[in-house]
């Protein structure tokens, strides 16, 4: 037996050959997947045919016929496709701003939870526990119906000397608008940025060579501002201020925020901010104590310790879970249907209802959110790769 094995190692029978088993396993899985998908599709097609419905997307070119309260330019005479685009842009508007604000807010709250100051620490803790442990839908309805809508009505709304307004019809503030000579000034701006970048590089090199303080931020900003200011004077008022006005029923001009958008944004930021605060706290705690002690021994102030030693390392730990929170926030914008903010799901539901094509709209939603989520994941993976230490991980 032993001799025979030494001469030619016995091959196990094929049903115990790991390679064959793996291969069969893969094949079986593929067959199963295909069959399940096929069955699902046939079931769908059967159900639709039974009710005399089809799976064509041609109806999307029909006239939409319904109004949309806010978003990019749109009229009811345009097609369902245009209405969906309006919804998608509104989704992006809520998600992008929400992600940025929630991150800043969550970062502040996460750091506050570790503050040596008892009051600050407790405030942050209560915030996190309250907002992390109640459903977002409830919070959204609360912020919209109980907070935003209880602002004064437009006749008695707050106004800041006829420049800025706030009421339950929305908020409006003055906003810069490109004037006729904006192009000229734009050229100056570009030149300023280029010069500033040049100063940055020169100062950095000088620092590397001599070790003297570089002051690159201050100096390059000063150059940029100087050039921009000179250009502003030369081109003659390239930017005008668009001051909003109240019509008694709403606002025109300036930068406006609708009550629905405000309600959604507040809810998303408060909710997601609580989760981000916990991620930040956990990531900071995960940085070894020795790092902070070493920074302290070098004589860095507490703020410098956080800025230069702890946060850069905590960032690396925080990015993967942050990605999940960003995805959640993006998908949670669909709850806006509860308060009438016309994002993608809202517009889609109207279309599904008016055109009677629920299945097609579902497919559009799934496709759109899939693309959105994968794009965010892709960006976050790039960030993750950029902050990962060389030689670490893959």
């Amino acid at each position, binding site marked *: 037996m032993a001799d025979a094995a030494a001469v030619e190692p016995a*091959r196990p029978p*094929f049903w115990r*050959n790991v390679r*064959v088993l793996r*291969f*069969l396993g893969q*094949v*079986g899985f593929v*067959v*199963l997947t295909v*069959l399940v998908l*096929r*069955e699902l599709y*046939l*079931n769908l097609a*059967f159900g639709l*045919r*039974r*009710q*005399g*419905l089809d799976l064509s997307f041609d*109806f999307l070119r029909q006239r939409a*016929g*319904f*109004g*949309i*309260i*806010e978003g990019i330019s749109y009229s*009811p*005479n345009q097609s369902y496709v245009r209405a969906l685009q309006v919804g998608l842009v509104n989704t992006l508007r809520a998600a992008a701003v929400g992600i940025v604000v929630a991150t800043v807010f969550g970062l502040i709250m996460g750091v506050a939870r570790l503050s040596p100051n008892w009051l600050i620490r407790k405030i942050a803790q209560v915030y996190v526990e309250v907002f992390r442990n109640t459903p977002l839908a409830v919070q959204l309805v609360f912020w919209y*119906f109980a907070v935003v*809508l*209880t602002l004064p*009505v*437009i006749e008695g709304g707050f106004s800041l000397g006829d420049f800025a307004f706030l009421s*339950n*019809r929305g908020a409006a503030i003055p906003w810069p608008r490109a004037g006729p000579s904006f192009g000229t000034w734009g050229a100056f701006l570009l030149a300023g940025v280029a010069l500033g970048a040049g100063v940055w590089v020169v100062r950095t090199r000088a620092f590397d060579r001599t070790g003297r303080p570089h002051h690159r931020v201050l100096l390059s900003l000063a150059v940029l501002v100087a050039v921009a200011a000179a250009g502003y004077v030369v081109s003659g008022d390239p930017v005008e201020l668009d001051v909003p006005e109240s*019509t008694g*029923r*709403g606002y025109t001009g300036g930068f406006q925020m609708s*009550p*629905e958008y405000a309600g959604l944004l507040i809810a998303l930021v408060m909710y997601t901010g609580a989760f981000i605060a916990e991620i930040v706290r956990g990531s900071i705690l995960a940085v070894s104590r020795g790092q902070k002690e070493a920074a302290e021994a070098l004589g860095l102030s507490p703020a410098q310790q956080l800025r230069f030693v702890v946060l850069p390392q905590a960032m690396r730990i925080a990015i993967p879970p942050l990605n999940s929170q960003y995805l959640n926030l993006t998908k949670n914008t669909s709850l806006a*249907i*509860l*308060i*009438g903010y*016309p994002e993608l799901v*809202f517009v889609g*539901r*109207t279309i599904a*209802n*008016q*055109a*009677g*094509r*629920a299945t097609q709209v579902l497919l559009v939603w799934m496709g759109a959110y899939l693309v959105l989520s994968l794009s965010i994941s892709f960006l976050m993976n790039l960030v993750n790769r950029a902050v990962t230490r060389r030689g670490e991980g893959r």
Partner: protein
Amino acid sequence: MARGISVKALAVLAAITLVAAACTRDEQPDEGDQTTTEQGDTGGGGQQQQESLLDVVRSRGTVVCGVNDTVPGFGFLTAEGSIEGFDIDFCKAIAAGVLGDPAAHELVPVTADERFNSLRAGQYDVLVRNTTWTSSRDGSEGVAFTHVNFYDGQAMMVRAGEFAEVADMDGTTVCVTAGTTTELNLADYAQQLGIQIDALVLQSNDDILPAFEAGRCDGWTSDSSQLAGLRSEFEELLGDLEILPDVMSKEPLGPAVLDGDSAWYDAVSWVVKGLILAEELGVTSENVDEEAANPSNPQIGNLLGAPTEEGAPFDPGLGLEPDFMVAVLQAVGNYGEIFERHVGANTPLGLERGLNALWTEGGLHYAPPFR
């Protein structure tokens, strides 16, 4: 050895595929002609003849109706916890007509937005939820409207004294319920008048109420019957309200069932027609028993399926009892009685009969004869 492996592997693979394919083949639908619909979870098709909802309802012993519970007068959840109203009485009438017992019904409140999906999903047998009959709902939603039970039109409600007509409302915000024809009519009407009206679309009247109360909207648009109900219910809360004279659209409302089930369609349809005909013939909940025993004319005899001198009563062959209208009229009375009970002049809504009068009295209600 190696070749043996691959041959056997292929054989196994082929066997798996065949078995799996055979399993799914059984559940393949037949091409075309699956016209009837099914209720419940009998699986993905099958070879056996699909039964009509009429039989399903009989064997289940209750009729399930998709209804509204936020429109006073038509379907409204009362403080006592029951849903009452004009549409609810039609559900009771269908239960009485099909099962002989008006109590044998179940009410499923549903949003405007979900009503057709839920009907298709079989969550209820009939949708009696102030639903407007339109061509694309007949064509694309896979539903069939049985008979108009209320002729309505879209109107605009505002705080008293703010506007005289919709044309004055340029630049305003108006609250609308999601998933209604109202959304479309509002956009069309504003366009026609050349004014800009922003529609704030919320899920139900319950959501619009706080928004309107807070002054987020200048107007509230819906079917005029609904607005009348809302005004009567909420005038205390919202202050004086006014319904503007504009009529923005035609809104014929009626019960809807799934496409392709003619037995069930006929049953629901003829209960509604019977109610209208009963009013025309003067049969009420008061005199129905007398008339059934001793009809004052042959038409009433046909309607009530009263026994004739020869013996056999008139049976239109709808798959219902010949005297099904007796139970219906005993339960809810004729069309006029339902109207007066929930939305008529002596109710908080105080609606005139108007278009909803019988054709003999200048209205639009006209039922085909029982012959």
